[in-house]
């Protein structure tokens, strides 16, 4: 499903920085994988490469059998639109759209018709426990509700891959636990593959397996833990 092969990514700086060096990683379809590591070890860079938001200096990145390094920016955008969902730490829910409109956005971008979109959005809102908040504006929601909205939006178009970056970073422990459980449940229900970046070992413990990026000088090494 996701395959990174000897991927190297340098940033020109200043100062110049080697973010990833010869990193390889394989994630199977339906897997829920946590990536943990200290700051600066390249977690964000790795997610960027999988999302097609960035390109490696060398090595290959393949998602669902598509080699992203061979695609131009527009093609990668279209691939991302159809196959990837995102959950951000700071939610990134558009303030001027209702909750339902936010969730419907990926479907609108894919050109789904209004009836199908409405049904799917209703189903997703119900799945994340927001069935009565579709008409609400984001500023009326709590942090936990905003992240539920983001999860619904990430999965509404049935992406093959969900990329979640510290999705509980802005939440209290109780809400964080609930959101992780919900994310896990929804991802499984939709049959998606999930890469979760987190600092929290507690959060990582919910994954099928964890991958630790450790910096050794300028090098980072991926270490696979035992599947759970």
């Amino acid at each position, binding site marked *: 499903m996701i395959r990174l092969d000897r991927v190297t990514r340098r940033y020109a700086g200043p100062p110049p920085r080697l973010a990833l060096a010869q990193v390889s990683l394989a994630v199977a379809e339906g897997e829920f994988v946590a990536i943990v590591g200290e700051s600066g070890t390249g977690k964000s860079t790795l997610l960027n490469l999988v999302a097609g938001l960035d390109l490696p200096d060398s090595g290959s990145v393949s998602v669902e059998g598509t080699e992203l390094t061979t695609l131009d920016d527009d093609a990668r955008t279209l691939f991302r639109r159809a196959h990837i969902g995102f959950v951000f730490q700071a939610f990134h829910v558009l303030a001027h759209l209702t909750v339902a409109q936010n969730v419907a*956005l990926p479907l609108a971008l894919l050109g789904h018709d209004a009836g199908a979109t409405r049904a799917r959005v209703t189903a997703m809102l119900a799945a994340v426990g927001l069935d009565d908040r579709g008409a609400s504006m*984001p500023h009326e929601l709590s942090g936990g509700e905003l992240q539920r909205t983001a999860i619904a939006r990430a999965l509404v178009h049935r992406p093959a891959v969900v990329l979640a970056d510290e999705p509980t970073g802005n939440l209290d422990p109780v809400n964080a636990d609930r959101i992780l459980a919900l994310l896990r449940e929804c991802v499984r229900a939709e049959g998606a593959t999930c890469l979760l970046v987190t600092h929290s070992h507690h959060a990582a413990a919910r994954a099928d397996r964890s991958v630790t990026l450790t910096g050794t000088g300028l090098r980072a090494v991926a270490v696979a833990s035992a599947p759970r």
Partner: protein
Amino acid sequence: MSAGALLWRAVSGGALAGQRGRVALAVGAIALGVALGFAVTLVNASAADELAAALRTVAGTADLQIRGPRNGFDENVYGRVARDPDVVTASPIVEVEARLEGHDEALRIYGIDAFRAAAVTPALIGIAPEPLDLLRPGRVFVSPAAARALAVAPGATIEVQSGLAALPLLVAGLLPAADAQRFGVMDIAAVQDAFARHGRLSRIDLRLRPGAPHASVAARLRAILPPGVTVATPAAHADDTVRLSRAYRVNLDALALVALFTGALLVYATQRLAVARRRASLALVRALGLTRRALVGYLVAEGALLGLVGAAFGLVAGYGMATIAVHALGGDLGAGYFRGVTPTLVVEVPVALAFVLLGVAVSVLASYLPAREEARTSLAAALKAGGRGSVVHAQRLPHVAWICVAAGVLATALPPVDDLPLAGFLAMALLLTGTLAALPWIAKTALAAVAVPRNVPAALAVTRLRATPAEAATSLAAIVAAVALMVAMAIMVASFRTSLTVWLDAVLPADVYLRAGAAGDSGYLSVDAQRRIAALPGVARVAFTRWQSVEVAPGSPRVTLLARDLADDDVARTLVLVAGPRPAAAEAPALWVSEAVADRTGWQPGDTVDLALGGGSYRFTVAGIFRDYARQHGALIVERRVYRRLTGDDVANEAAISLAPGDSAGTFAATLAQRMPEATRMAVTTPAALRALSLRIFDRTFAVTHALLAVAIAIGLAGLSSALAASIVSRRREFGALRHLGMTRRQIAAMLVVEGTVSSAVGLVTGFALGGALALILIHVVNRQSFHWSMDLAIPYALLATLAAALLAAAAATSLASARQALRHDAVSAVKDDW
């Protein structure tokens, strides 16, 4: 680093340093507004000072001046005045605007009694190598400025026109006058002889006994003066002359303030978005203990700094602009009031300081509003704003909007203040302020009517605009103000030009117009010349006109009296009447008055009024009020037959000639030259040429207006561009999220272009509607009260449509440029807080 400096840096320093482009734009806008206002004020003040100084030169140390109409008053008045016990010296003077042979301009010549003038107006006593030249006929002393302009020196000869003859004058010497005025001085008797002013005086300068009360002497003299002859201080006369240009000057100043106002809107838009951008850091400083008041103080100080820098640049730029304008357009910026005056620019420190304060004040005000808004924001909400985006509120129409608009409408009904349309300007300012206050509501209401398109980027754009009308209003404020003023001016100018064209068609019914001399008042058509012109072959009909000046209200400037040969249907055909006609009784002949005279005197058709003419006072019936775009300060028309009977003045200044069928203006000019050799001193022209000249003068007068408005529009567009760019920059995280969701750069750019174009369209519609209302105020209040000119509304549809299309295209282009700039940043860095 001190605590204050640290706080300043925390609140403002970084923001200023990090937004150099926008800061430069805001400073530039303030600088431009200050520069325009300062330049216009500087030019006008300098020209008025120069003119006043020149008037003082020719008035000398006179305590009082006695003045009569254009063709003077009986010289016997002199004897009566000189006998007054409080009059120490009475200096009689005859003034003539003598047309210079071979030129289309005139030289003012003062005829003086050198013995008496030496005590009152020493600047008029020539420096004569041969003292008797002061008394000899045919000798003239010229001012240094006139000598330079005419390229003559003592010993040279100049020729001027008298009647239809040439009069050679030997330049006997120079005058000691040091100002820039061009004039000459001759012996008084020589002037009376040479210019057919026998027994007439133009004025008498009086020096009074030290300690004599001027007011009571003036009152005593007034009682012995014939009707139409006035007594006043020289300062009052100088004031009258300077006042001639006042309305034009005030209107130009108002336009310059418009540029400053638009600049203030730009500062407001920039500051508001700049404050919003650093909301998180401002909230943090507040959380650390900075009071709301202190926060406002720091933000306002930031605005004051911008204003100070802008105003300083503005003063320098304004001086430069004034220097260029004086050389290119003259001391009246092309309006024709101070002909011959090229002022030396003198910067008065209080005026310069006033403009600096104005620049700072508008910046402070423009910064205060967003600062206050920020300080009122809930601290908790502000701290969380970065994660949740802006809070959206429903927009209601604020009370201040209604109040301003209602007060503005009421202000249009107020009369002028000291002859200035201050209430009209106030009404315009109130309508503008009310509309800007209502802009969020207008934007919300208008955007609610826009259907959400199916296309995703367009749908997102419309949805966002609908949800954030206040932000749209902020972007639009500058462009709404600029467009409204542009539209108002365009409609006013079109209405004026159309009305002028119609008026010219009416008042120029003849085939040829002939004037005794192209300039000045030294030329005239004698009775013999009139007879010979009327008898020329091809002349079907000729109507002569005599010009005179009369006083219609005590203490007010004289107005032009036109004594015309009028046939039965001439009034209906050649006067554009706005009231009347009314029949006149035989004992009170008909008098037609211009709108300016009617405004000043309150005369209405049917009224009987007394008018001082030729030393007597006569009763007339106001037969009608006519539109007159030629004489801003007023004109009267009487039948020449009546005028001749009352005054005995038989000469004429011009003739309107209707030719026999088949004859042309060219044929007539040839016949005239052949039969009347003195015709070389007449100015012969056609209605078409007069029309073209009038419209050229009109266009030149409004050239400055157009330039100022072009600047206001440029500032407005810059404001829109700045606001859009700032808004787009502040939304980078949103765009990053959208890119993550799969929107292409092109789609985001399209979304932003739709946003910019739709919101600009709302701004344009609002600006056009407001502009229409302002145009009505300009036409019916400001122009009417400033210049006493009525006009019919004419809307330049094609011009407005072109402007709207151009502005909309400019707005779309601006949005696209801003979008491209914003999308240079990659999606990763846009959401870097997360990744």
